[in-house]
C-alpha cells in the first residue's frame, strides 16, 4: 500500500499526479485542478505548434506544385524532400517535450460514448451483407456481359473506386463497416462451416500473402482495364475465400486469413469511431494505436509493412522514373532467353518483393537498434510489435494521398454506372482534379506521419517506465519514418507515366 492518505481511492491518471504532489489533500486538490489547466494549455500549445509547422510546409509545397507540371518545382527537389523529412524530425523533437504521462494517458483515453448498437447489430449485418452479395453478383455478371470500357464498367468502378479507394478511406476516417458489408461472410453464414481448426502458428501469414498477391495481380494483369478479367479475378477470390471460410469456419478465416478483412480491421484501428461493448464510441483518431493487443505476431507487422509498401510500389511504377528504371532493368536482363513480356513481369515481381523485404528489414532493424541503444531487456521483437500500430497512421496517409484523386475523378462515372449498370453512357464523365490536389497529397502524407510520431511517442511511454529511455527508444523508429516520408514525398514529386510492358 502507498502510505499517502486515501490513496486507495486513486486510480489511473490521478495516481501519478498524487505521487508527484506528495501528501496533503489540500495540495492535492490544487494540483489536480492545476493539472487540468496544464493539460489544456499543453494541448492548445502543441496543436498550434504542430499545425503551424505542417501548414507552412504543406502550403509552401502546395503553392509551388500547383503551377501546372509536377516536375518543375520552384524549390530544388532535395530541399523539398529535406523539408518533409525535417518536418517529421521536428515534430518528433516537439513530441519529446511532452513528458507528462497523465496528459498522454488522458488524450488516449478520451472518448465520447455514442448510441448502443447491439440491438440493431444483427439486422444491420443482415441487410448490409445481403446488399454486399447483390453488389458482388452484379459486379461479376456485368463484368462478363456488360460494356468493356473501364470507365463505364460497373465492375471496375465498384472494385477500384469503392472497395480499393472509398471503403478504406471511410474506414480510417470514420469507422470499420466492412464486417457489416462483407458479402463472402454473408454467403458462408448460410453454409455449414468449420470442419477443421485454423492452425494457430499460421497467424496472419495467409493474409500477408493474400494482400501481396492481390497487389501483384493488380500490377501484372489488366484487372483495372478489362472488366471480364476482373470478373474472373473476383470469382477466383470468392472461390478461395468461401472454400477457406467453410473449411476453417468464418470467424477464424476472416480474422486471420482473408486479406480484405484484415486490411479493414487494421485501418479501423486508426479510426475515430469504434464499436466497443455494444456501443459506438468516438475517440481521438489514432488513440488506439498504442493498444498492445493489436499486433501480436510477426505476421501482423508484415501485414502493416505490406500496406505501406504496396502503396509506395504502385506509386513508384506509375512515375517516369519508375518506368525508366523498369525499362533499364528489362534491357539489362536481356540475356537472350525469354520474351520481353516475361522478363518485364519478372522484373516487376523482383522489384516488388525486394522493396518489401527492404522496408520490412528497415523496420525490424529499428526495433533491434532501439533495444541496443536503450540497453533494455525487453526483446526487440516485443518493441517492434508495440511500435508497429503507429505505422498504420502512415499507411492511412499514403492511401489517402494516392487514392483521393482517383476517387474524385471517377465518382461521376461511378454514379452513372450505379444508376444504369446495364446501359451506361458511351462516353462517361471523368473529372480531372485541380493542381492543388498534389499539395493535398503531400499534406496527407505528412499528417499520417505526424500521427504516427505521436502514436509512437505514446507507445514508448506505455512500454518504458523511464521517460528518458522512452524518448531514446523512439529514435530508430523516427529514422525509419523519416525514410518512409522522404521516399513517399519523392514519388509524389515525380511526373506520372504509364508503366511499360504491362497489358
Amino acid at each position, binding site marked *: *500500500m*502507498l*502510505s499517502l492518505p486515501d*490513496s*486507495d481511492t486513486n486510480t489511473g491518471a490521478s*495516481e*501519478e499526479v498524487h*505521487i*508527484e504532489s*506528495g501528501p496533503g489533500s489540500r495540495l492535492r486538490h490544487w494540483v489536480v485542478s492545476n493539472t487540468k489547466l496544464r493539460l489544456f494549455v499543453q494541448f492548445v500549445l502543441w496543436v498550434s505548434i504542430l499545425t503551424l509547422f505542417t501548414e507552412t510546409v504543406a502550403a509552401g509545397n502546395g503553392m509551388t506544385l500547383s503551377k501546372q507540371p509536377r516536375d518543375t518545382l*520552384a*524549390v*530544388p527537389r532535395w*530541399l523539398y524532400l*529535406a*523539408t518533409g523529412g*525535417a518536418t517529421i*524530425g*521536428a515534430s518528433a*523533437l*516537439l513530441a*519529446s*517535450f511532452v*513528458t507528462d*504521462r497523465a496528459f498522454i494517458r488522458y488524450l488516449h483515453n478520451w472518448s465520447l460514448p455514442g448510441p448502443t448498437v447491439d440491438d440493431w447489430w444483427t439486422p444491420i449485418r443482415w441487410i448490409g451483407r445481403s446488399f454486399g452479395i447483390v453488389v458482388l453478383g452484379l459486379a461479376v455478371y456485368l463484368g462478363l456481359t456488360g460494356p468493356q470500357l473501364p470507365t463505364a464498367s460497373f465492375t471496375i468502378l465498384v472494385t477500384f473506386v469503392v472497395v480499393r479507394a472509398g471503403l478504406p478511406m471511410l474506414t480510417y476516417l470514420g469507422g470499420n463497416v466492412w464486417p457489416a458489408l462483407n458479402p463472402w461472410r454473408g454467403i458462408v453464414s448460410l453454409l455449414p462451416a468449420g470442419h477443421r481448426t485454423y492452425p494457430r502458428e499460421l497467424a496472419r501469414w495467409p493474409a500477408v500473402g493474400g494482400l501481396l498477391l492481390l497487389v501483384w495481380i493488380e500490377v501484372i494483369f489488366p484487372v483495372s482495364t478489362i472488366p471480364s478479367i476482373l470478373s474472373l479475378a473476383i470469382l477466383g477470390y470468392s472461390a478461395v475465400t468461401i472454400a477457406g471460410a467453410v473449411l476453417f469456419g468464418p470467424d477464424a478465416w476472416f480474422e486471420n486469413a482473408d486479406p480484405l478483412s484484415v486490411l479493414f480491421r487494421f485501418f479501423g484501428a486508426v479510426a475515430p469511431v469504434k464499436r466497443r461493448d455494444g456501443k459506438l464510441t468516438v475517440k481521438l483518431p489514432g488513440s488506439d494505436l498504442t493498444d498492445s493487443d493489436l499486433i501480436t505476431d510477426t505476421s501482423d507487422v508484415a501485414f502493416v509493412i505490406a500496406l505501406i509498401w504496396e502503396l509506395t510500389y504502385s506509386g513508384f511504377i506509375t512515375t517516369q522514373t519508375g518506368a525508366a528504371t523498369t525499362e533499364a532493368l528489362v534491357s539489362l536482363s536481356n540475356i537472350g532467353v525469354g520474351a520481353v513480356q516475361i522478363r518485364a513481369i519478372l522484373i516487376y515481381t523482383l522489384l516488388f518483393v525486394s522493396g518489401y523485404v527492404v522496408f520490412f528489414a528497415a523496420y525490424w532493424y529499428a526495433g533491434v537498434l532501439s533495444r541496443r541503444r536503450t*540497453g*533494455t*531487456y*525487453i*526483446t526487440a*521483437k*516485443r518493441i517492434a510489435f508495440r511500435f508497429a500500430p503507429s505505422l498504420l497512421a502512415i499507411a492511412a496517409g499514403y492511401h489517402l494521398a494516392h487514392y483521393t484523386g482517383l476517387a474524385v475523378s471517377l465518382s461521376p462515372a461511378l454514379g452513372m454506372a450505379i444508376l444504369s449498370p446495364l446501359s451506361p453512357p458511351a462516353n462517361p464523365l471523368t473529372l480531372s482534379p485541380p493542381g492543388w490536389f498534389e499539395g493535398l497529397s503531400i499534406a496527407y502524407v505528412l499528417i499520417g506521419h505526424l500521427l504516427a510520431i505521436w502514436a509512437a511517442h505514446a507507445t514508448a511511454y506505455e512500454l518504458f*517506465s*523511464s*521517460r*528518458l*529511455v522512452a*524518448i531514446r527508444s523512439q529514435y530508430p523508429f523516427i529514422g525509419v519514418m523519416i525514410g518512409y516520408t522522404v521516399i513517399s514525398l519523392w514519388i509524389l514529386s515525380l511526373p506520372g507515366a504509364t508503366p511499360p510492358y504491362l497489358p
Partner: protein
Amino acid sequence: MSYEGTTVPRRDSPAGECDYCGHPFPTTDRLVLHKGLEHPQELDDDEEDAFLSARADEEDELRTLRLKALGALVLLYFGLLFMYAIFA
C-alpha cells in the same frame, strides 16, 4: 522468475528484478521507476521514497534533454531558413 517479452543478454547482469511481476531491469533507477508506476499500491515507505527521488533525478535529466531538443529545433529551423534563402 522470467518475464514474458524480455531477455537478458548473457554478458549482462541485471541490477534487479521487479518483486511483483519479475520484469528484469539493467539499472536500479529503472527498476525503482517501474515499481512506482506499475505497482504503486504495493510499495513500502522505502521503495516509495526511492521512487520519488528517482523521479526527481529523471526530471532533471529530462530538463537537459529538452534543452538539447530545443537546440536541435533551432538549428533545424535556421538551417532550413538559410537553405531556402540560398537555393529557393
